[in-house]
């Protein structure tokens, strides 16, 4: 089955008009986003995330490489038909009311008038803006505009949803509401591509992530794999001094407090050796816990590694 998004060596180079300086905003990015998944694109500011999204939607033209949406060249307008998009820093026309704005963008998405008439009240209700339908957008708060933007992206029931910083300016309750909507869509098989700098949001919601750094993919994979299996934490009660020194040499870290000593072992083999040595000394083991990393730790480690390389 063709993936929802596939890019091949996608590159965007910006050139300063009067100087010869080049900025490689996106540099040879090849990504594959399977249908029905929830995919998070991460990266520090200026990593090229928004440019990558704009390349997918043909808002920006690639210098090299290409992008496909459901197997069709992203430059063809029809390829964007199954896509719902919420841009970062959107500027919806303030003279439109919420309902009129949805009607306008629904028409541009190719929705017949009768479908728009049915869907608009439904979606306004879903994002909690039903009472604001006939109010001009210049009266809306940032969070309300964001929720309306999401309704706009969902209006034509897209199979692929591309969201650029969807929680920006939204209060915690609104964020939970957005997450619930997205979870519902995920269950319906909609592919969700999330571009966000909010790592906790991505970790909570996405199944797969890619980390962009200086326009390149620094790391990609399933969130569960990236955050799992970093080691084992063993807590032992008062082991003898000589044994502590012996195990400290094998451990990644060692810390003592209140008569207990915590060892962090990098893998299972070293852990089992340590258990054998502790049991041989009849030393009680308080607990053994498999440790995981947060996505934030993975992100920081990845960027640090790339920084050292680069």
């Amino acid at each position: 089955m063709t993936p929802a998004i596939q890019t091949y060596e996608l590159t965007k180079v910006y050139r300063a008009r009067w100087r010869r300086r080049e900025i490689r905003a996106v540099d040879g990015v090849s990504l594959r986003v399977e249908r029905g998944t929830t995919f998070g694109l991460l990266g520090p500011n200026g990593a090229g995330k928004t440019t990558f999204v704009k390349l997918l939607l043909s808002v920006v033209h690639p210098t090299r490489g290409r992008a496909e949406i459901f197997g069709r060249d992203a430059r063809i307008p029809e390829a964007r038909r199954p896509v719902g998009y919420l841009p970062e820093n959107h500027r919806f026309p303030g003279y439109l009311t919420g309902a009129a704005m949805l009607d306008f963008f629904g028409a541009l998405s190719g929705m017949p008038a009768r479908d728009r008439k049915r869907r608009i009240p439904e979606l306004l209700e879903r994002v909690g803006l039903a009472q604001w339908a006939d109010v001009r957008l210049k009266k809306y708060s940032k969070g309300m505009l964001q929720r309306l933007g999401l309704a706009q992206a969902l209006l034509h029931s897209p199979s692929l949803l591309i969201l650029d910083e969807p929680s920006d300016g939204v209060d915690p309750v609104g964020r939970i509401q957005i997450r619930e909507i997205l979870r519902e869509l995920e269950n319906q098989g909609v592919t969700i591509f999330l571009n966000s700098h909010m790592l906790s949001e991505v970790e909570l919601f996405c199944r797969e992530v890619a980390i962009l750094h200086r326009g390149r993919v620094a790391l990609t994979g399933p969130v569960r794999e990236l955050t799992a299996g970093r080691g084992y934490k063993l807590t032992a009660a008062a082991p003898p001094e000589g044994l502590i020194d012996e195990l400290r040499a094998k451990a990644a870290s060692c810390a003592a407090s209140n008569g207990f000593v915590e060892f962090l072992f990098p893998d299972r083999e070293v852990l089992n050796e340590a258990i054998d040595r502790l049991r041989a000394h009849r030393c009680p083991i308080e607990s053994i816990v498999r440790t995981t990393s947060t996505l934030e730790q993975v992100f920081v480690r990845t960027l640090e590694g790339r920084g050292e390389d680069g």
Partner: protein
Amino acid sequence: MNGNRAAGITAALVRDTFREAFARKIFLGFYGLSTLLILFFLFLLKIDVVEGARATVTLFGQTSGRLRDVEALVRGFQAGVATFLYTWGMALAVFASAGLIPTVLEAGRIDLLISKPVRRAHLLLGRYLGNLLVVALNVGYVVFGVWAILGWKTGVWRTEFLSAILTTTFIFAVLLSVIVLVSVLFESPAVSVMTVFGMMLLSPILAQTRLMERLLPSEWSRDLWKALYYVFPKVYDVGRMTLELVNGRAAGSLMPLWTSALFTLAILGAGLWLFARRDY
């Protein structure tokens, strides 16, 4: 894209332009001024037809004692309105419309528009058409209104005057294509207005081809003048043509119309080409 869908998208783009024109009070300004002009003919100008084909005119309560030919009188008023519309009305229309194209090119608005399954050319042409209709409807409102009032007051129904709707709208379409190109290039209403006003001022100067043939010393400079005259839109010539038509005379050569139409196609084509290639 099927025809119905394309028509639906065009209608949405036109409707959006109208909404923005309403919100920016462009409609209020246009129709307010136009209504004032119509009211002037309705209430302040009194024409008393005597002896069948002759009439006296009363303006602001002051009656001119002279009897005038009714048809000539109506023709004169209509020519005055057509000239006013073609010059001051056009300047006002350019000034008011110059902002309607660059606003859709603003970051945060244009990226969402482009992300929709619509060709970029379609987006820009929809806006162009909407803008053109805003002005065309207003021109139609003034001309038709004045025509109806003068006809009702005098019984002279000169349909020649209605041709001013077509020629004035045509020249606005020409100038609007320049606004489109300049907006795509610079995204600035001010630069658009300056460029269009520059062209409007340049047109009567370039139209002096016979005079320049006598004044310019070299063959190449005369050829250059002629080339510029043929290339640039003929705002002045079409204006003269409008006056001839309104006065019931033959329009003369159609060259100003078709060269200006070609100019519009070329400029609009360049605007669409650039728009399709730009990154937003």
